[in-house]
């Protein structure tokens, strides 16, 4: 049977993030934590493979203790097993240290039960880096197939997977050797509602929690200490200088537009003269 592991992250729902108009900062209170949407699509894709070929699905996440909620959500979407890597030693990890710890978790899972395929979301919506999936693939030394919009075929006998990838100017179809790492984009599927029995199972499910002691890792590569990048400064975006308001937009739009058109033409002429 196909053994699939899905890597998921719990993130704040950025679509719910609002800006405080007075202070111009993010209003963070009450923002719900969700499963990173790309990862939810990866879980759904795994569930589809399970329905088609039969598969065992394990969800792996790294995060604070409350990230078990994200894992339970994935269990309601069809995952059989859920593991959370949670330890203060993991805190403050950048993408390098994140893929390091996750890969250690994946290796342990592979040792315990075997692993044919790792699915990740393309990127996490809170960081938008798209670096963790490739990081995992390189560390495992497995083929990396990013931006999947479809997995039309998995041939366990032959040990191959066929993936359709969304590129900038079209769709590329690749056939890769298993085991492999595939990252998915939203286009791959529509999220489905969990069935009642699945929801009940998920509510009762208790994910396993592994700390750094449970993994074959070197302390120096974990969390903040293991992160090559550091944040040196945080500042608000620069405020640009405001331009000119052309009067009359409300009561004489023809005149206002005429003035705008003249000004645009003037700019072009000034620009051409400069050259």
């Amino acid at each position, binding site marked *: 049977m196909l053994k699939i592991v899905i890597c998921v992250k719990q993130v704040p729902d950025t679509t719910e993030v609002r*800006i405080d108009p007075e202070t111009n900062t993010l209003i963070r209170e009450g923002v719900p934590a969700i499963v990173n949407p790309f990862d939810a699509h990866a879980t759904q894709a795994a569930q589809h493979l399970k329905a088609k070929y039969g598969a065992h699905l394990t969800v792996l996440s790294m995060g604070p203790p409350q990230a078990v909620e994200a894992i339970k959500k994935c269990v309601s979407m069809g995952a059989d097993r859920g593991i959370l890597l949670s330890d203060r030693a993991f805190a403050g990890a950048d993408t390098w240290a994140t893929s390091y710890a996750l890969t250690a978790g994946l290796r342990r899972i592979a040792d315990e039960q075997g692993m044919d395929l790792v699915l990740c979301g393309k990127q996490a919506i809170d960081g938008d880096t798209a670096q963790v999936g490739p990081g995992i693939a390189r560390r495992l030394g497995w083929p990396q197939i990013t931006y999947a919009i479809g997995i039309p075929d998995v041939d366990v006998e032959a040990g191959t997977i066929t993936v359709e990838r969304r590129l900038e100017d079209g769709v590329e179809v690749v*056939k890769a050797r298993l085991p*492999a790492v595939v990252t998915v984009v939203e286009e791959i599927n529509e999220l489905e509602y969990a069935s009642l029995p699945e929801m009940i199972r998920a509510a009762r499910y208790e994910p396993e929690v592994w700390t750094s002691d449970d993994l074959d890792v070197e302390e120096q590569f974990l969390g903040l200490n293991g992160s090559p990048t550091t944040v040196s400064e945080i500042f608000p975006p620069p405020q640009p200088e405001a331009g000119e308001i052309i009067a009359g937009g409300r009561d004489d*739009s023809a005149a206002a537009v005429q003035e705008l058109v003249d000004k645009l033409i003037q700019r072009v002429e000034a620009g051409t003269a400069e050259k």
Partner: protein
Amino acid sequence: MRKAKRKLQIIAGQCIVCGLCEGECPFDAIHMEGDVAVIDYELCTGCGKCIKVCPTDCLYFEGEEEAEEAAEPEVAEEVAPELEAGLAEYQGVWIYIEQSGGQVHPVSWELLGKGRELADALGCELAAMVLGEDVDDVAVATGYYGADKAYVIDDPLLAHYRTHPFAEGCLKLVREYRPEIVLIGATTLGRDLAGAIATDLHTGLTADCTGLVIDEQARLLRQTRPAFGGNIMATILCKEHRPQMSTVRPRVMEALAPDETRQVAIVRETLEVSEEDIGVAVEEFRPDADLDKPNLQYAEIICAGGRGLGSPRGFELMKELADALGGVMGASRATVDAGWISHDYQVGQTGLTVRPRLYIAAGISGAIQHRVGMQTADTIVAINSDPEANIFQIADFGIVGDLYEVVPELIKQAKAGNLKEKLLGDGGT
């Protein structure tokens, strides 16, 4: 309950849940909860260790807000001497040249433009990394755009992009010639490659940088990118690992005007990968059938509509305006989320970065996440019924009014006065 000597407070809006305080706290009294650090007053002793490590200064003791201001200055840029000697072996600024069938992605030229500036600041060489099949012309052209040297790997296995052989080729070059900085375009392909290379090199990689400058004293690349929904800019350093790697989106930097007399020195290397190592075969490529897919990133004129359009039909009006001006349509995320228009048109942080000569924003409020995608347009025109709308803060020209009156009028006058010709005509590139 433990009696803390001082009461720790947090400025929630400033917290970026980096987890530094959590790792630092000896008493397990701070935890990241969703998107803010939460203090457990039962456990906090008021020792203040967390305050020292917080990068955003969002932690303070009640009543001590002032004193905290004067806290010690950052001694960030210091590195142990042995390590420094190792780092000094890395010299030069490199740009990865993304090409397909000899066709170079313009972001590579843009990065050469930026790279020239960085290399000059460092007093080092600017080099291009060119991988592919039959890429000699590409290598020569890198000189026109500012490169001093081109490292070339030409191999039939590199005919089409696949992660493994391209990553191995880049790794070989970087390990052999040791650049201190490597920049890669944040394109579909560039992101696929950059994450792979940085992992093997055990170095930092900062995605989607909007600002890159050299700290000459520390000889470090200061990489600035929007963080946490774009409301905050973060400057990232990679102090103890080389090369320092960043990805940059198309249209963020500017290419130099090509100078066809500029020569580039070519250094050739070979690829040590065989087909069997790769494990991935490209079976088919289906080009997008939709030929009018917008090319927003490189459009000269963009007419963008927001939620103020009121309904999907508003984009018909925007299309008419775009046609009248010889431009293309753009959109805010609110309209994309509402399903009025496809994501291909979305401008902003989670959409495209554009840099047209003229950007017209109609019914767009100008949220920071939208602005980061379009604020470098040469001329910005805003049409909005709310005089307080943020978009007016960055507009060169604003008209306060109902877009359903202003835009049709603009279409009419644009057609009558042949504005399209005047805007794009002889001033065109």
